[in-house]
């Protein structure tokens, strides 16, 4: 009876929290003022139910397209969080965030990305995954472990004529991953000088890559690739991040080494095609981001980032699956299957950004530019947000890509047609 009373009392003292945003917006191409018809989140709702030391948290969104009028309900997160004295434990579909820098995080590979939102900040660009995580605080240390039982992949805009980097058709992925379960571990130390973190993650690429091919060899003619078969490489990352302060400047940095390899393939031994050739590949690459930020006396924040990605070693071996005989076939161009999304644009870039508020936070000005240091090209964005009444905001933004006509394969050149104006209305509740 006493236990029941205590339970009822706990329920009675439980607390419901919610917040959300309604955000209709429209994007218009700069070149011909045509509307860009990509899905966007027209409404989001974050809900929480607090019951003692336990929270139930949810995040839902409604994704909408103007041209078709269709809306899709999306349960982005739903998880239980328990907060004992020593830390926190969470289980469910959730989004994690590792790393010290803003926006481009080589150490943050726990969740796949939603490339429809790759220019959106924070968790908006991520997809929730079912996972178990636990964080323990011991003195100045934090230790965090994450188990992701099922591999999830990036959401890519396939067949979207309005997104220049879109592939026309979603590729068929032949092979399942070698090991579904993914594991991550991070330790952070805080001191008067700042924070330092180390992270390890063992998982699978979020984007598919070439693993085998069906090839016809004929004497006297080059081999003909009849079919390319995709799968997900196994990747392990070792990362490091820090934040420290020098005078009025804040320095943030993050770096990760990725070791990716072709997985062990599950091929039926009795049904191996005669023309099947496997690509054994082992690639080590690194991504780093270094950020400096400064806030002026008038509360304008200026930050600069240097983003770099490089391949330190690559090894490719093609061999015939049945005979295990090595053959000579062209090696694919390496594309990272994990890491900061910006790596699809360039291997080296500098990003400068600035933001400030005026008129008692009624007006917000933001601007950023990304300069491609590897080839030509840049991206420029600027936005003005005005809040005529509390909880309402009107925002207008311009996004400009500039490439080089002589470099048609340059991502910035391909994105030029995506240069657009955006107008959005926000209501927060």
């Amino acid at each position, binding site marked *: 009876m006493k236990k029941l009373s205590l339970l009822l009392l706990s329920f009675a003292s439980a607390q419901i929290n919610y*917040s959300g*945003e309604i955000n209709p917006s429209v994007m218009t191409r700069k070149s011909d003022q045509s509307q860009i018809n990509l899905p966007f989140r027209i409404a989001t709702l974050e809900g929480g139910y607090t019951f003692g030391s336990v929270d139930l948290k949810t995040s839902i969104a409604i994704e909408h397209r103007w041209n078709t009028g269709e809306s899709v309900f999306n349960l982005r997160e739903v998880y239980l969080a328990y*907060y004992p004295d020593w830390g*926190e434990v969470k289980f469910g579909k959730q989004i994690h*965030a590792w790393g010290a820098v803003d926006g481009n995080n080589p150490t943050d590979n726990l969740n796949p990305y939603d490339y429809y939102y790759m220019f959106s900040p924070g968790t908006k660009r991520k997809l929730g995954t079912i996972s178990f995580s636990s964080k323990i*605080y011991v003195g100045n240390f934090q230790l965090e472990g994450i188990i992701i039982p099922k591999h999830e992949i990036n959401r890519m805009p396939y067949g979207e004529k309005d997104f220049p980097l879109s592939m026309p058709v979603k590729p068929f992925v032949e092979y399942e991953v070698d090991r579904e379960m993914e594991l991550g571990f991070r330790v952070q130390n805080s001191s*008067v000088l700042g*924070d330092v973190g180390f992270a390890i993650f063992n998982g699978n690429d979020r984007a598919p890559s070439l693993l085998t091919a069906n090839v016809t060899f004929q004497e006297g003619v080059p081999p003909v690739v009849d079919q390319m078969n995709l799968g997900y490489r196994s990747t392990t990352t070792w990362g490091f991040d820090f934040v420290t*302060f020098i005078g009025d400047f804040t320095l943030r940095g993050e770096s990760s080494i990725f070791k990716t390899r072709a997985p062990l393939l599950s091929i039926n031994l009795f049904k191996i095609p005669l023309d099947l050739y496997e690509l054994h590949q082992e690639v080590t690459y690194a991504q780093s981001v270094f950020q400096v930020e400064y*806030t002026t006396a008038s509360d304008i924040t200026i930050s600069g980032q240097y983003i770099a990605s490089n391949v330190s070693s690559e090894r490719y071996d093609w061999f015939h699956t049945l005979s295990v005989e090595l053959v000579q076939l062209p090696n694919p161009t390496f594309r990272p299957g994990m890491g900061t999304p910006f790596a699809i644009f360039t291997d080296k870039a500098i990003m400068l950004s600035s933001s400030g508020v005026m008129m008692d936070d009624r007006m917000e000005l933001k601007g950023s530019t990304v300069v491609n240091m590897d080839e030509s090209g840049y991206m420029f964005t600027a936005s003005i947000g005005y809040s005529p009444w509390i909880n309402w905001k009107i925002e207008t933004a311009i996004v400009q890509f500039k490439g080089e006509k002589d470099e048609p394969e340059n991502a910035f050149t391909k994105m030029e047609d995506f240069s657009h104006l955006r107008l959005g209305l926000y209501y927060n509740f």
Partner: protein
Amino acid sequence: MKKFIFFSIIGSIVCAQNGLEIAKMVDARPTPKDMFNKTKMVLTNSKGQSRTNIMVSKSMDGNKRQIIWFLEPKDDKGVSFLKIEHSNQDDEMRMWLPAFKKIRRISSKRKGDAFMSSDLSYEDLSSRDLTKNEYSRLDDEIIDGKDCYVLKVIPKKEAKSSYSKHLSWIEKSSLMAVKEESYDKRGELKKNKAYTHKKLKEYFVMERIFVEDIQKNHTTEVTFLDLQVDTGIDYNLFHEKNLKRIPKM
């Protein structure tokens, strides 16, 4: 009779406290072990347009440890801020940003920066170290019927203050500040601050702060609502893990 008056005058001259002694009295004033309140902050610009922020705050050690959870405006809801002051090293400040799911460590050095775009700076919200300021007593004054000490406070170089001096009116009976004028590095009047306090349990606590930035022609009114003291706040509350959960009022 003349001897009595003479010795009274001499006695009062000898026994009158100087600025530092008054500052020490103010510093030694009984303060709550902890405080829990809802804070309403109204910012008003030169055109009379206002904007309201509402937050929940828990603090202890005379505000040396403080967590603030922002409730309004709604686009700030869920953002929270942890401050831990250290006497012999830089303060620690962290913010929880729900949109990024990150606890962001931020620089504590810019004490002159405005808190949430208000006329109160982080320095205004921090406690003053007696050893890092020079105190001198000016003539007592009566403000709104309250008999007050008047102190001139000049921050020393090690205080790294954004002000060159303050004039503070301290009510004698409560040892609470009633009014303060703060001057910028050029010696020009920057801010006028007016304080209202009340008695809660055996303590005098701040109930309202009104700040006028003379140079920007802008005001901030901070009202402390639902004030509770000595509620037994756990020392371990002031940890970043508690930034993610808004407490129940």
